[in-house]
């Protein structure tokens, strides 16, 4: 296991691979959404702060999500 959230966080049913990284989204509570990325290691699994990341936003639709760079 390379990542574990706090209890009761909901996963979006999607993993998005971009090159050597995998992005995924979890919802830690009802009002927040977190974007994470991993290079496949525990050390390389990081939360992307919403105010610092290079993504202008993301949208979750069903079992897909789209990253806008």
């Amino acid at each position, binding site marked *: 296991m390379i990542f*574990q959230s706090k209890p009761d966080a*909901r*996963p979006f049913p999607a993993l998005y691979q971009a090159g050597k990284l995998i992005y995924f989204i979890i919802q830690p509570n009802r009002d927040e959404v977190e974007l994470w990325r991993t290079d496949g290691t525990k050390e390389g699994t990081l939360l992307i702060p919403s105010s610092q990341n290079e993504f202008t936003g993301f949208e979750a639709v069903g079992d897909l999500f789209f990253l806008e760079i």
Partner: protein
Amino acid sequence: MSIVKAYLHPAGTLAFLFLQMGILTVCSGQQASLVVDINKTTTSGVLGNSVAALKGLLYFSGESQSGSGQELWRTDGTEQGTYMVKDIKKGEKSSMPSGLKATSGKLFFLAKNKEDKDVLHVSDGTEKGTRELAGLIKPAASVIMDDAYFYIRTSPFNNTELWRLNGNEDETF
């Protein structure tokens, strides 16, 4: 020769793109054509749209008229080379393989176990090498990267977890 793309027709026929001498060719000429009809009693013997290529063979979820239900099949693009890999759920009941994904050496997929629960399975393409990964319940999502199978799931304690299974190392399972 490696199969690099498969087409599933609504009627249940399979067609393949082959990589041969570095050139993409469609089998049997310029148009996709039937390789084999594995179930002549129904409109479709190839179910779902989940296929994966492993070591030059194509794996898919299929159901013949033999009464084995919907199980894991493989094909090399010929009628003789198309057959069921394993009757995971013995008898008429179906294991209904889905979500097939392949590393360079292993095939990962979901299939129903004896308790009728969707459980992660692994296969090296042989009957003996096709087995359930004990305790690994249905992932919410999965992807292949760096020749490893990554999947996300909710734990029994309601945590969201991301796991990695290395494609060629049984001991990591």
